[in-house]
């Protein structure tokens, strides 16, 4: 506890490029960019595979591999391969780990929509794209958001680990603190990361309420 007071109580830790606000911003920025790029890759692919039913095997393999891949190993290997120094290569492992959960959940969400519903939608005269966007996506939204949430949490955690290979962000406090035996800084960084993860979790809960139809989440009270 004293270590924490020491870390958060030091004025120098609150300003400058290695201050908490700057590090936090960096962390959020990297995570957001990685998540966004992952979404751009995974959501259309998941929608396509789920809607057409073609390529489901890809998804299953991706899901299993992603779970078994050791994050640290992947980060280290990719950065060594693409080159040390610049921060952008570090985004590659973050994306590699964020794509599978989004892909899998989008695919499962779309594929899991009841057959009858698809049938009714086509039977009403909706075209393929309309069926996907107006019916399947809204109904699959809770699962798609779950995938995004898992990916976001994964990204925040991996970005922390990636500080080891030079990425900025909150992980720096942990890695640098470990290297210099500065435990207050290490612990402070860990607490900040935990807080960020909780905020992400909370953010998604709010987002879920905002965008999922009450008819799907069954949140309306039955009178």
């Amino acid at each position, binding site marked *: 506890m004293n270590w924490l007071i020491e870390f958060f109580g030091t004025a120098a830790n609150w300003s400058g490029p290695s201050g908490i606000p700057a590090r936090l911003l960096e962390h959020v920025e990297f995570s957001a960019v990685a998540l966004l790029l992952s979404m751009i890759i995974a959501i259309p692919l998941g929608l396509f595979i789920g809607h057409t039913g073609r390529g489901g095997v890809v998804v299953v393999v991706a899901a299993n591999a992603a779970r078994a891949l050791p994050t640290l190993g992947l980060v280290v290997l990719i950065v060594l391969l693409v080159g040390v120094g610049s921060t952008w290569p570090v985004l590659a492992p973050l994306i590699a780990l964020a794509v599978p959960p989004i892909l899998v959940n989008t695919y499962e969400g779309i594929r899991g929509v*009841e057959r*009858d*519903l698809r*049938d*009714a*939608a*086509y*039977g*009403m*005269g*909706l*075209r393929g794209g*309309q069926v996907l966007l107006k*019916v399947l996506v*809204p*109904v699959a*939204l809770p699962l798609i958001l779950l995938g995004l949430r898992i990916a976001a949490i994964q990204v925040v955690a991996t970005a922390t680990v990636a500080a080891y290979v030079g990425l900025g962000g909150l992980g720096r406090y942990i890695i640098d603190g470990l290297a210099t035996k500065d435990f207050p800084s290490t612990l402070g960084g860990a607490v900040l990361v935990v807080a960020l993860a909780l905020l992400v979790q909370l953010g998604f809960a709010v987002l879920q309420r905002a965008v999922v*139809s*009450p*008819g*799907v989440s*069954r949140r*309306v009270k*039955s*009178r």
Partner: protein
Amino acid sequence: MITFEGVTKRYGDGTVAVDNLSLQVPTGAVTVFVGPSGCGKTTSLRMINRMIDPSEGRILLDDRDVRAIDPPTLRRGIGYVIQQSGLFPHRKIVDNVATVPYLLGWDKKKARARAMELLERVGLDPALAGRYPFQLSGGQQQRVGVARALAADPPVLLMDEPFSAVDPVVRASLQEELLRLQAELQKTIVFVTHDIDEAIKLGDTVAVLRVGGHLAQIADPATLLAEPADDFVAGFLGKDRGIRRLSFIPASKLRLSTGREVPGWSVALDEDDRPIGWRASGDGDGPLRPFGVFDPAQDSLRAALDAALLAPSGCAIAVDPGGRFAGVVTRETLDEALGRASGEALDPARSAAHARPAAGGDPDAGQAAG
């Protein structure tokens, strides 16, 4: 008019779902496809709106091959109702009903107004419009499904086992509702069911299909009951065909004796002239015994027979549409009518007049609560 011309559906694995089906679905009437599972009835239905395309043959909708029409355009002009209602869970009831009008580009206000009108038309409380499907009972959801299919006022309605997932009481009331709507709207309806009683109750024409997608017989219900084409059809129709056929013979021709007395019994009335029971003759304050009534203007011979069988006198009480006493039909008169019915060559024109069937369990059937 929908015409099937030598339609065959064969799947990649060699199974034949529909085998060389040729039939006509007349405009403005209900045609029921009925048969056991695997008989291709749903496949046949789904070929009309191109949810499935036939392997051979063609289907004409008012002389246009449906294959020539782009499927979404075709489907927007054909109402489609399925078993599990298929309502969109993320949309409120009113927007579910307005789906096709929205697709056709109606403005939102007009589409919603139309949806509200339809909700009322299918017997739903307009207060339900703002709810989501999961907040409705199965029967209510099915009504919404029907309203949604009718939203853009399509001339043709396809109904794929729409009532088979609800309990018998709700099913009966949905069936009544459909008959009432159909009397008003006169759509061309193709209705698929595995329930022969439902087929007989709803169909102007019934097509019986057998496993493998063969058409076994197509006829109006009375003919079907009287003259099944073969053992399969007879077996599928089940027992009591003779009695069930009476549902299609109107009771209007029965001779009424206007007096309240029959040998040994008399009809007791309340102050509004409504029958309240049979009483033994000469026993002024004696106990009231059970009775049955029928309305000769609407009911069938079956309802009249049923009314007679309920009474100790063996006579049926006729009432007017207001439920007031209109006369008595004696057992002898009934006997004669039954004799005529069984001897009579079936005249399709007459049976098509479609006396209201009075199947058991039908809440609106002829006999009043005694």
